């Protein structure tokens, strides 16, 4: 019997959710952070969507949020011209890094000792978190606002996407530009998959996959609507994408075939990411919600429960929801 996807809606934000990130897998499970225009980024348990805490302190929309691998630290980028580093266990603000304009993106190195930031002042900044009073190293080159910046190649290089319609690869030691990709339009999102060095880029209705070291194109896939974000499954058999038509799309990575599409959000999807174990993916939308979607629909995982036909109608003391009540944004 075919099973229909039941997305889990995480409410709490009061404005559009513009960015989200998962941590790695820790002894306490994995975690999810969401950036929201309401200025209050939230930490959630990754496999259930349960709210853990809200990072309070920013005075403007939060455009970017990230967690370090073991989810002990969080970093956020905001319209109040600061990036902040937080203790992700206690929720306390640890560091405020003043910038000269709106900060859009933040990213930790694998050992959490260095924080990369980028924003509307067109500069990439590298902050040494062990000596935070020291001035950050600055990399100039982009001619317009930076939307996304990521560490890659074992934190030896940096990838940045900008409104100047380029993606640039930089060497950390020399601080020089190594390679540039130019597009006809601004790239809407960028995801880096370290295992296999794959870069996932979205622009227009296209989802493009590049080799992250050489910036050689691997393949492109066209979606039915303009796409704002895409994510590749850790095992590289699927990828998911979401955009302006409010739907989530699931594609087969090898065949490029569109496998499924899911309705659910009440506004454009701004960000979508697979969990580190690939069992679910999370989407953030203009409607102010995050939704969690199962990769294998019907499987018992997190809050989803596989109910076999024989069990239907049997006495069950557990209350099971068969359709989630829709919460209007």
């Amino acid at each position, binding site marked *: *019997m*075919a*099973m*229909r*996807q*039941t997305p*889990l*809606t*995480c*409410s*709490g934000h009061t404005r559009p959710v513009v960015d989200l990130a998962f941590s790695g897998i820790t002894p*306490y499970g994995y975690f999810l952070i969401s950036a929201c225009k309401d200025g209050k980024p*939230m*930490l*959630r348990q990754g496999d*259930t*969507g*349960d*709210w*853990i*805490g*809200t*990072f*309070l302190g920013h005075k403007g929309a939060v455009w970017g949020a990230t967690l370090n691998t073991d989810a*002990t630290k969080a970093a956020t980028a905001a319209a109040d011209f600061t990036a902040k580093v937080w203790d992700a*266990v*206690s*929720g306390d603000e640890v560091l405020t890094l003043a910038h000269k304009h709106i900060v859009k993106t933040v990213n930790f190195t694998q050992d959490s000792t260095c924080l990369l930031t980028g924003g509307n002042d067109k500069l990439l900044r590298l902050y040494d978190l*062990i*000596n935070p009073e020291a001035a950050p190293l600055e990399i100039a080159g982009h001619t317009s606002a930076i939307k996304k910046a990521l560490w890659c190649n074992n934190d030896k290089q940096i990838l940045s996407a900008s409104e100047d319609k380029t993606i640039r690869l930089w060497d950390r030691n020399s601080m020089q530009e190594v390679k540039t990709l130019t597009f006809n339009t601004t790239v809407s999102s960028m995801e880096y998959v370290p295992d296999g060095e794959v870069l996932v880029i979205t622009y227009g209705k296209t989802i493009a996959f590049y080799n992250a070291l050489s910036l050689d194109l691997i393949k492109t896939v066209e979606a039915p609507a303009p796409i704002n974000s895409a994510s590749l499954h850790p095992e590289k058999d699927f990828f998911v994408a979401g955009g302006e038509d409010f739907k989530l799309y699931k594609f087969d990575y090898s065949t490029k075939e569109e496998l499924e599409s899911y309705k659910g959000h009440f506004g454009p999807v701004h960000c979508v990411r697979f969990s580190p174990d690939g069992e679910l993916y999370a989407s953030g939308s203009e409607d102010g919600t995050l939704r*969690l979607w*199962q990769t294998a*629909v*019907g499987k018992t995982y997190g*809050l*989803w*429960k*596989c*109910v076999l036909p024989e069990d239907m109608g049997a006495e069950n003391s*557990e*209350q*099971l*929801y*068969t*359709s*989630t009540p829709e919460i209007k944004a």
Partner: protein
Amino acid sequence: MATPVSVLRLPKGPDPNCRGFDPNSPRFIALCRTSIVTSAASETDAEQLPKEQHARSVLRESFLRCLLSMTNKKVRFHLHERVKVEATFGASDIDVLNFQVSDLHTPIGVQKEALIRCQDVISFTFEA
């Protein structure tokens, strides 16, 4: 007609009264409770750090060995409010949050089996 996947419950939403980060969660208790802060948090001295880490390992090992050697022995616990109780030590849980004891002598009687909350203990002594 496809059946929608069943769900145990909906994800928990934010508490309107607080910012969260429950101090009683296992993660908070395990990761936030360092009574002795590493010197790395304030000034960095690359030479000091390995020495300090070694000292921490030695202290931790001797504490764990102490817990091992306490098994089935009579231990006297000094608790808050000047309370002293004696019991036969059983085991500690992995995060050293609770001690399982037997024959706990309290001011109001003897409890055959009990759990002592470690945060209530100031110190304990026993004959090795």
